[in-house]
């Protein structure tokens, strides 16, 4: 290789004196020619080749994988991503079933020094596995489909929230879930709110602030709508206090649990609906904000990586985490410092950064805001994964893995000088509650408490 400048140039290139000729196969078309999310025009499928080629097998991803650290049967993200992709070039190779052990936390993406799109490779491998190797008649398939489409269940269940909550809490229901569906009976099913966020929004008559310049469209997702409407209400009140006109368009699940269960066609339907709904608002000058960090991550990155939809890039580049948005466009720290006068209630929280927040550069944000408020202490409980990863920790066969991963976080929460938890991800919150018994709040709720006179 290293003697190219000498004899080989003379052998092949007529009159060429230095280096390869114009026809050299190594020639690329200039700088930055590799775009890992480039789409093959013929198929519409993501082209994963450049991403796989960028992997130099340093195994940094493997050392960041929370599942691989507790389960030897999981060979880690490097295998699931670039290595499996290469194996698949041979047509007689199936996807390795261990792909279902990936929890989709995406810490590998965050770690990779060369930007290999590992989670994109995992998402496509998982979808291929489910489409081609999982029976449509198996319990796993229907259980996963049910979990992935939680929003559909929630829509039905929240029509009669008290009844649903009572039924879901019954030991008979749990027994059935565990035996028939393979949903763990160890966890308490999250309660449905007696009034959904959208019902509240409609009742109050929608937006109370109108503005030509400052407009946001809220992507609440299913959880804030059906289970924790107080988070959505806090978001609306905080943004209105900064003078924003808030829109709440019709929307479906972000698709996160569908990606994680390999239900890519379900996710494509949800994404198509959401992109269409929010694209029009973005074109009218709205920015999209989310209160759940997995939702914002889906809109910002996964849609773009997986689906070739009209306006998907417009939506992706105009989507933000709600708190991030205020940090960027408003003097949030200043407002917090001013609002936290003498009557502020002293409060201390044990804060966990969701993995999907890390991927958006949001780690540290909540702790920094805590610093701005007198009497508010936000203790970071470290960088371990909570282990639940959405629907993952709800599966009977994954429950133990999920809790083993979570052990470090539970210990750090209990060691922190606080007795309330804080996080932005609804399933991380479930795990924190489940592992420690702490009440867990959302950052937006705490901001609303500080900023708004009650």
């Amino acid at each position, binding site marked *: 290789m*290293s*003697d190219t400048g000498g004899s080989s140039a003379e052998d092949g290139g007529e009159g060429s004196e230095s280096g390869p000729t114009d026809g050299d196969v190594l020639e690329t078309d200039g700088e930055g020619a590799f775009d890992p999310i480039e789409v093959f025009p013929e198929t519409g499928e993501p082209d994963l080749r450049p991403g796989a080629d960028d992997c130099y097998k340093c195994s940094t991803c493997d050392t960041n994988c929370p599942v691989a650290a507790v389960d030897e049967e999981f060979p880690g993200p490097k295998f699931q991503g670039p290595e499996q992709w290469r194996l698949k070039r041979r047509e007689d190779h199936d996807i390795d079933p261990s792909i279902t052990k990936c929890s989709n936390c995406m810490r590998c993406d965050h770690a990779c*020094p060369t930007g290999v799109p590992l989670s994109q490779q995992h998402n496509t491998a998982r979808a291929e596995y489910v489409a081609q190797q999982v029976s449509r008649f198996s319990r796993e398939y229907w259980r996963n489909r049910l979990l992935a489409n939680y929003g559909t269940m929630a829509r039905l269940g929240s029509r009669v929230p008290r009844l649903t909550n009572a039924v879901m809490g019954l030991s008979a229901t749990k027994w059935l879930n565990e035996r028939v569906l393979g949903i763990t009976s160890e966890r308490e099913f999250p309660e449905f709110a007696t009034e959904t966020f959208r019902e509240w929004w409609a009742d109050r008559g929608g937006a109370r602030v109108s503005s030509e310049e400052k407009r946001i469209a809220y992507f609440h997702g299913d959880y804030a709508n059906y289970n924790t409407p107080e988070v959505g209400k806090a978001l609306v009140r905080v943004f209105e206090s900064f003078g924003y006109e808030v829109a709440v368009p019709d929307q479906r699940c972000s698709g996160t649990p569908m990606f994680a269960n390999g239900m890519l066609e379900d996710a494509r339907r949800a994404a198509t609906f959401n992109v269409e709904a929010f694209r029009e608002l973005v074109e009218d000058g709205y920015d999209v904000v989310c209160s759940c960090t997995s939702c914002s991550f889906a809109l*910002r*990155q996964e849609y773009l990586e997986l689906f070739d939809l009209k306006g998907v890039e417009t939506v*992706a580049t105009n989507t933000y985490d709600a708190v991030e948005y205020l940090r*960027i466009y408003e003097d949030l720290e200043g407002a917090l410092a001013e609002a936290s006068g003498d009557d502020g209630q002293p409060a201390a929280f044990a804060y966990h950064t969701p993995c999907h927040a*890390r991927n958006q550069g949001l*780690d540290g944000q909540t702790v920094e805001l805590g610093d701005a408020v007198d009497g508010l202490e936000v203790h970071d409980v470290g960088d371990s994964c909570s282990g639940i990863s959405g629907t993952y920790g709800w599966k009977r066969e994954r429950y133990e893995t999920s809790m083993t991963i979570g052990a470090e976080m539970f210990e750090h929460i209990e060691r922190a000088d606080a007795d309330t938890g804080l996080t932005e991800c609804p399933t991380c919150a479930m795990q924190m509650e489940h592992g420690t018994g702490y009440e867990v709040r959302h950052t937006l709720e705490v901001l609303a408490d500080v900023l708004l006179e009650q």
Partner: protein
Amino acid sequence: MAIEDDVLVIGGGLAGMTAALTAAERASRVRLLSYKQSTLCHASGLIDVLGYAPDRSGPLVDPFDAIPDLPQGHPYERVGTDAIREALHFFDAVVGDAYRGAHTDRNALVPTGDGTVKPTARYPASTAAGLASRPRATLLVGFETLPDFDAPLAAAHLRETGVPFETRGVTLQFPGIQRADATLTRYAHLLERDEPVDAGAGAAPARTVLAEAVRPHLEGVSRVGFPPILGDEHHAVVRRDLEERLGVAVFEVPSGPPSLPGIRLERLLFDALEELSVRVTTGVPVVDYEASADGGRIEHVLVDRNGQRVPYRADSYVLATGGLVGTGIDSSRERVSEPIFDCNVAHPTDRYDWFEDDAFGDHPFARFGVTVDRELRPLAADGEPEFANLRAAGAVLGGYDYAAEKSGSGVSLATGYVAGTHAAAEVRG
């Protein structure tokens, strides 16, 4: 509005974290931005200052004897000997008991996973019992499922280098792990949590079973070296437990990537950053900057947040983005460049002059990087600082070949320390 700080450090490796820690002792608001995990996860965890001279003579007994003879433009020549010593004192204070070697200027000799002996200035406490200068009979233990460390081969190689002690190696089955593709963190987690494993005689805690497997091979030795997988956060506990069970000293043999000792050092420094209230943002890259009207100062940098370019403003900036491996220095077929500020990177125009034909030759590319003045400000081709408020530290600097000299960590510490000090002094208050 921009996200505001006094000092903004770009890059989360050893140089960047040192710069941020140094600055945080002198300025109130310091932020560290790190795009991806740094090359510390590839690093041995050893803190080399200078193991070999640029003419490749060595190993050097005392790096401080050789530093005054380094050529002009070498990062150590730029910052001076006193700064190197101060930076080492600073490091010693930050890491405390986790590192050894501060008692002397002289290099320690640490056996590596390849059976070589590496001269280094500081070493993790976990490697301390294994130093090659101690004449104690040694057993190296490798595992079937971890082929990167071949203990009998490493032992044979050590014997060839003439170490003053008996050494032999043995390859065992790691209790509780059968698969050849389990990750390193799986081994560490098993030992750290002392999880029950079944090695055929019923379940027992992993450390107990491991000690039982090693015991029959101990005859005549007074220390045992393992690959660096002996636990994670509480690795000192794992090591001590094994020492008590085996009745001999236990140490880790530094290895190539991925490397838990490098990752442990990273965590140690991140904890120190938290202690000093340094704001840390990871996962998003700095992609561009705005300069003042006359081009003399950086007004703010732009961080790509999923397609949106968000300004981050500070009074002064430290560039610690790494070298060719860490992607702080980039190359195309036409040129070598520094991708964020496009600082001048001197290099021959003909790319066939960037390397030597001999794979182990004295490659010019190994010295590619930005050129700096004595305050570590990157210099343009005309010899003037690129920006008044930008400093550079670590592997993004040119003028040294860290792989040949074994000077990577020392340069990162010394230049990170100096860059952080100057960056804090620049803060307008």
